[in-house]
């Protein structure tokens, strides 16, 4: 058991820190939350800066244009960028963390050459066309149909909860190509251009206010067969290859952010007198334990991935269950510290508190995660 970093890792951290200190002060101001074109430009601009500095696709394989960094280096990158207040991956999320790695792992040389460089250079935005109104946590029951017509697939159906759909260039789309096959077997993975005729995007207003997601309606959209990644009807496997890919590090920045927020909250409580309330003070102390432990769990999972045990699937569900609830508890405690400001939509905490309500739902609800833990980790019999 060792929590120290190698000289190479420390050197990597030092150089990254130095670079961040140099470039961050020159960044343009952050766009408003509902300014989607502005957010796209801002996020892609940041990605371009990472690319030029040699930090783009840090954890991607070298033959896909990435840096082939170790999980620990990726952990350091996420830790330091968050600590320095650097922009989030934002609109680049799906391209960099999911569609890109999927194409890198399963695409043809031509597909890799077409799609990977623009993701790394911050030129194209991807969105994720997985969930449907009738297929949320039960993703494999998706119904969007695609049938062959010459060199094209013709796609009809609809997708929902599609982040960044309004400003995306491409959609990683799961479609049903064989309705007669068992539900996991008849699915195909397509790269769909968002400007294709028949694609309609409708922003979806959420309880957090500004449109966070969109619905995407597909009316006989033609997608070239050449845009299929993997074999026809093999899309479920193609997706699963990369779906747990990021589990070890997906929340690194967020845990670092929570530890910073908790410190801010304690200082706010000191200023407004709530710190003298032992119940609230100890509640913040417990949250400190929580996020320290979640940070250690992250280090444990990353270290386990580095030992070459392959995809870190086990730690992912355990971590997500605990983290999603802890973050919601953090905002509940914040509301008690802030008092009246907790109801002021102009307070930065409030929008984050509302957004955090999705954490126990998105990417598999807490209930689905518990089923995964019980059945796949603990080996309990399959239930219904």
């Amino acid at each position, binding site marked *: 058991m060792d929590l120290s970093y190698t000289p190479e890792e420390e050197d990597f951290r030092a150089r990254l820190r130095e670079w961040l200190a140099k470039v961050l002060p020159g960044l343009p101001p952050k766009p408003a939350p509902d300014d989607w074109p502005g957010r796209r430009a801002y996020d892609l601009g940041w990605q371009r800066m990472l690319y030029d500095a040699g930090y783009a696709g840090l954890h991607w394989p070298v033959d896909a244009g990435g840096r082939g960094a170790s999980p620990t280096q990726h952990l350091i990158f996420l830790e330091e960028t968050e600590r320095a207040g650097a922009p989030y991956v934002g609109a680049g999320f799906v391209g960099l963390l999911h569609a890109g790695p999927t194409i890198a792992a399963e695409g043809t040389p031509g597909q890799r050459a077409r799609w990977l460089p623009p993701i790394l250079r911050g030129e194209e935005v991807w969105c994720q066309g997985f969930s449907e109104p009738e297929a949320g946590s039960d993703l494999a029951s998706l119904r969007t149909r695609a049938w062959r017509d010459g060199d094209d697939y013709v796609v009809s159906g609809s997708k929902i909860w599609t982040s960044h759909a309004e400003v995306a260039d491409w959609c990683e789309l799961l479609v049903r190509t064989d309705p007669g096959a068992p539900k996991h077997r008849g699915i195909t993975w397509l790269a769909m251009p968002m400007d294709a005729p028949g694609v309609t995007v409708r922003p979806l207003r959420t309880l957090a206010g500004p449109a966070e997601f969109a619905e995407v309606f597909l009316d006989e959209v033609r997608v070239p067969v050449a845009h299929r990644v993997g074999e026809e009807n093999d899309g479920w496997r193609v997706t699963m290859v990369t779906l747990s890919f990021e589990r070890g590090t997906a929340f690194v920045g967020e845990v670092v952010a929570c530890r910073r927020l908790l410190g801010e909250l304690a200082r706010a409580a000191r200023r407004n007198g709530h710190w003298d309330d032992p119940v609230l003070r100890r509640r913040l102390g417990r949250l400190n334990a929580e996020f320290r432990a979640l940070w250690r769990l992250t280090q444990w999972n990353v270290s386990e991935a580095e030992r070459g045990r392959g995809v870190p699937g086990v730690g992912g569900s355990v971590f997500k269950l605990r983290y999603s609830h802890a973050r919601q508890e953090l905002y509940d405690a914040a509301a008690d510290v802030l008092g009246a400001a907790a109801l002021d939509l102009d307070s930065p905490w409030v929008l984050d508190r509302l957004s955090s309500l999705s954490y126990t739902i998105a990417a598999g609800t807490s209930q689905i995660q518990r089923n995964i*833990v019980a059945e796949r980790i603990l080996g309990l019999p399959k239930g219904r």
Partner: protein
Amino acid sequence: MRFQLTDDQRALRDGVRQLLARRFGPEELRAAVAAPGALDRALWRELGEAGFFALRLPEADGGVGLGLPEAVLAFEEAGRVLLPGPLVATHLAAGTVAGAATGETVVTAVDGALVEWLAEADVVRGDAAGAVPMRSLDPLTPLHRLPGREKAGRWWEGARPSGPGEGVRPSGAGEAGGGTDPVAVLLTAAEQLGTAARVCELAVQHARAREQFGRPVGAFQAVQHLCADMLVRAETARAAVYAAAVTADPVDIAAARLLADEAAVRGTRDCLQVHGGMGFTWESEVHLHLKRAWTRSHRGGGVTESEELLAADLTAGTG
């Protein structure tokens, strides 16, 4: 960063597990419950020979020369099997009290208002004058109490000496602010972690085997979710306990203690729930785990102290 067990650490953990399986299995546990208050001296010496108490003592002083991570792994195993005795106090006394390292001498310590195993101990660290025996909740941990000492030595009351027991508390490494020894707090957390992991296994075993309504109860989502939450708490606590063993930072130790207490106490209650009516019987092993987890949670460095320490850390500019 290699935050995983080394091969040597795995071997050590497996060795302790095998020793305890051989010397303190289910039969010995039953026998110990049937004869409460008696410490198995032969087992204590065997633990000493195996290096359990001398684990962190330098080799030059006849110890094993290992560190806190190894001690934590050994205490986790002790927690798993409900090993009785003043393990933490004797371990901390190795190198200071003659015979402690080898298991020849049984050492206990005053901890706040309580003393574990006072009647069986050869040496008591701290002022146990006025101690009166009580009927202990935990059949495997005889207790004495010290009237009027309920608040002695709690760190948040300041660094000032705060009671007659002060200064004669267990003296391990890193005595902080005149309060409880952080190493004692960490080793208690390790025992709680062992309990949390063990009761999760017991619940899963039962949920696979026990059938109701024509299928194993583990196929019911309500039972699955109890078990999943037990694992999540145990694994979160594990990361915190192991990390605290590496850093030996009192704030990390406080976090580890909080999460390990929670994992042990809530895990054991959930385990009892999964066992249903059988879990409520004396024959079931579950109540022994719950009673021990409750007893350990009363040791120094408990919930309130740890929460206050962690809160203070937030405004110290290092949170």
